[in-house]
C-alpha cells in the first residue's frame, strides 16, 4: 500500500487558561484537541464530523499550520511539518491549502477578486511569472464557474455562493495537493450548497486533490467522503469507510448522532428509533475520566470511568471481517443500525426535473 499523503499521530492542542495581567499564571487548559490520529491517502476525501466544540476546526487549523500543536505529529509525505519554519514551512504551505466556512469574512473586502486570488503568486513568485498572473487568475475564475471578466470586482458585489467559489479559487491558486475545507457549505443556502459540493467534487478529479472535509452535516459528509471520522470532545471516537460508519456504527455516540439527524422523509418519522442523549457536552476544560462520552452514554458502566477506550477494532469484531469491523473507541461496542434503509422513493422521482 502506498504511503499516505498525510499521517497525523497523537495530535494535541491545549489552550492554557491563565490569570493575572502582567504576570500570568496557568490555572488550567482548554483541551480543544486531545490526541487525534488519522491518515489521508492521495486522492481520497476524509470527512470529519462532530458537534460544535468537538475540536474539528482546531484540527483543520493545525493541518494548515495556523495553530501550532501542543504535541503530536503531522507528517506530509513522511516529513513532520509541525516544527517547520521559514522557507520549509512556506513550501509545505503551497501544498496544503484551506477553504473557510464563512464566505463573508474570508475575503478581504478592500481587495479585488483578482488581488485576492493573485496574492498567492505575490507570496510565492516562483509559481507564476509576473506577466502570466492575470491570465492564471482568470483561468481559475473560469474553473470555479465565475466569469473571468469580473476579476476587478470587490467581494461585496458577489453572493455567498459566489464568494465561496472565489475562496476555492484562492485555495487552488498554488496547485496544492491537499485542501482542508472547514464547513465550506454550512453558511450557504440549501439550493446553493449542492452547487458548491458538485464543484468541489469536480475539482477533486480535475486537479487530483485530497480533501479533509470538516462539517457538522452528516448527510453532506457522507455524500462527499470516502472515509469518515467522528469526533467528540477533542478525540476521534469512531472511524471507517462511509458505509461502515453510517450503516454499521458501533460507537454509541455515532449512533446517537446519526439517529438525531432529521431525515427529509415524513414516512420515516413514525417508525424511526431515536436515541435522545441526556444533557450537554462537558466542558473541554474538565474532560471526564476514562471514556469521555460516558457522562451522556446509556451504556456506561464502571469500566468506562476507569479505562480510556482505545481507537481500534473492538475485540468482539476482530474475528469477523465485515463492515462492523472498524475502529471504534468503545468498551462495549455493538452494531446498531440507526439510519433507516433507503426506500427506493423517498423524495422526488429519482432523476432531476426536465
Amino acid at each position: 500500500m502506498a504511503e499516505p499523503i498525510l499521517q497525523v499521530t497523537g495530535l494535541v492542542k491545549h489552550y492554557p487558561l491563565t490569570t493575572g495581567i502582567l504576570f500570568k499564571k496557568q490555572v488550567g487548559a482548554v483541551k480543544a484537541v486531545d490526541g487525534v490520529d488519522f491518515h489521508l491517502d492521495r486522492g481520497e476525501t476524509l470527512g470529519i464530523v462532530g458537534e460544535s466544540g468537538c475540536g474539528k476546526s482546531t484540527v483543520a487549523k493545525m493541518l494548515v499550520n495556523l495553530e501550532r500543536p501542543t504535541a503530536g505529529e503531522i507528517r506530509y509525505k513522511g516529513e513532520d511539518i509541525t516544527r517547520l519554519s521559514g522557507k520549509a514551512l512556506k513550501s509545505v504551505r503551497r501544498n496544503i491549502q484551506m477553504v473557510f466556512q464563512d464566505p463573508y469574512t474570508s475575503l478581504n473586502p478592500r481587495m479585488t477578486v483578482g488581488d485576492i486570488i493573485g496574492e498567492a503568486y505575490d507570496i510565492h513568485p516562483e509559481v507564476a511569472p509576473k506577466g502570466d498572473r492575470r491570465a492564471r487568475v482568470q483561468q481559475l475564475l473560469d474553473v470555479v464557474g465565475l466569469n473571468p471578466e469580473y476579476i476587478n470586482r470587490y467581494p461585496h458585489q458577489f453572493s455567498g455562493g459566489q464568494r465561496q467559489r472565489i475562496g476555492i479559487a484562492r485555495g487552488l491558486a498554488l496547485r496544492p495537493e491537499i485542501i482542508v475545507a472547514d464547513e465550506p457549505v454550512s453558511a450557504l443556502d440549501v439550493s446553493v450548497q449542492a452547487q458548491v459540493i458538485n464543484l468541489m467534487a469536480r475539482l477533486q478529479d480535475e486537479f487530483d486533490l485530497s480533501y479533509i472535509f470538516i462539517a457538522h452535516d452528516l448527510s453532506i459528509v457522507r455524500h462527499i467522503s470516502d472515509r469518515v471520522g467522528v469526533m467528540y470532545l477533542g478525540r476521534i471516537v469512531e472511524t471507517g469507510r462511509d458505509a461502515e460508519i453510517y450503516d454499521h456504527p458501533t460507537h454509541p455516540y455515532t449512533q446517537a448522532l446519526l439517529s438525531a439527524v432529521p431525515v427529509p422523509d415524513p414516512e420515516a418519522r413514525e417508525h424511526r428509533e431515536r436515541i435522545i442523549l441526556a444533557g450537554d457536552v462537558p466542558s473541554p476544560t474538565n474532560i471526564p475520566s476514562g471514556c469521555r462520552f460516558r457522562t451522556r452514554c446509556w451504556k456506561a458502566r464502571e469500566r468506562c470511568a476507569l479505562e480510556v477506550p482505545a481507537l481500534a477494532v473492538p475485540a468482539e469484531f476482530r474475528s469477523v471481517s465485515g463492515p462492523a469491523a472498524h475502529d471504534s473507541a468503545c468498551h462495549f461496542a455493538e452494531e446498531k443500525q440507526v439510519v433507516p434503509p433507503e426506500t427506493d422513493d423517498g423524495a422526488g422521482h429519482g432523476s432531476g426535473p426536465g
Partner: protein
Amino acid sequence: MLLEVRDLHVEFHTRDGVARAVNGVSYGVDAGETLAVLGESGSGKSVTAQTVMGILDVPPGRITSGEILFEGRDLLKLKEEERRKVRGAEMAMIFQDALSSLNPVLTVGDQLGEMFTVHRGMSRKDARAKAVELMDRVRIPAAKERVRQYPHQFSGGMRQRIMIAMAMALEPKLIIADEPTTALDVTVQAQVMDLLAELQRELHMGLILITHDLGVVADVADRIAVMYAGRIVETAPVHDIYKNPAHPYTRGLLESIPRLDQKGQELYAIKGLPPNLTRIPPGCAFHPRCPMAQDVCATDVPPLYDVTESDAERGSACHFWRECLHG
C-alpha cells in the same frame, strides 16, 4: 382557522430601491396544527412571521396591504395597545438565538416571572413559583436552584428551553418558532424539537415553524408552505409534498439534498441564485432558474393553482404544475 394571513404585502425601502419582501402571502393554521414555512434566506418567511407577531420594524418596513385574521379579528386594524395584549398572551414567538433574546442582566427566574407579574398581575413570590414550575415543565434539571441563574450560565440547548418556557408561559393559542434549532447541535436539536412538539400537543396550540431545514420539517410538520421571493409557491400536507412535489422549486430543493443512493454521483443543483428582492424577475420569480420554464413563465405571474388530487388540499404556483406532478 386560528390564524389566517390573507394576501399580505410587505416592502422595505432601501438605498437600492424598494425591496419587495412579501408579495401576497396567504396561509392559515388551525389549533393543534403545525404549519412549516420553508424557504431560503430572502424568501420572506421571517418577515411574514414578524408581521404576524407585530414586531416588524416600521420603517424601514411597510405593510402595503393584506389582512391577518386571528380568531376572526384583523390584527392589522387593532390599536397598538390592543395588539400588545395579544402578543405574549395569545401568540408568542421563539427566536433562533436564545442568548441574544434573553436579557443578560436579569436572572431567568425574573424573566420568566415577569410574564406573570405583567400580564397576570401576580405577586413576585407567586411568579417565582410559576417560573420554577415552567422550568420543570421544559425539563431543566434542578429548576429550583437554577431559577436564580443568569442566561449565560446555561448551555445553548437549555437557553432554548427557557425561551420555549417563556413562550408557553401564558398558554398562548399560537406559537411562531423562527429557526428554533438552527443554532443548536443535532443531538440537542432533537431534544428541543421533541419538547416543542410535545408541549404543542398537550396545549393544543397552533405552531408555525419557520425553517430552511427539510429534515426538521419532515419530522414535525402537518402542512408545509414553501416560499420563494416573497410568495408561497407550493402548499400541501407534509406527506404529499415529499412524495410528489407540485412545484419545480420544491422538487429542486428536495433533490439537491445528498442522498445515499446517489452517492458519488453529481448532486442535482438548482442553477443560479435567489433573486434580489429589489429586482424580482417578471412573471414567475423562479423562471430564470427553472428547468421547466416556458415563454409564458417570463410574462405571467402564476396564481396559486388548486392542485388537489385526493382529499387533502394542495396548491402550486406553477403554470406547469400538472407536468411537474406527473413528470
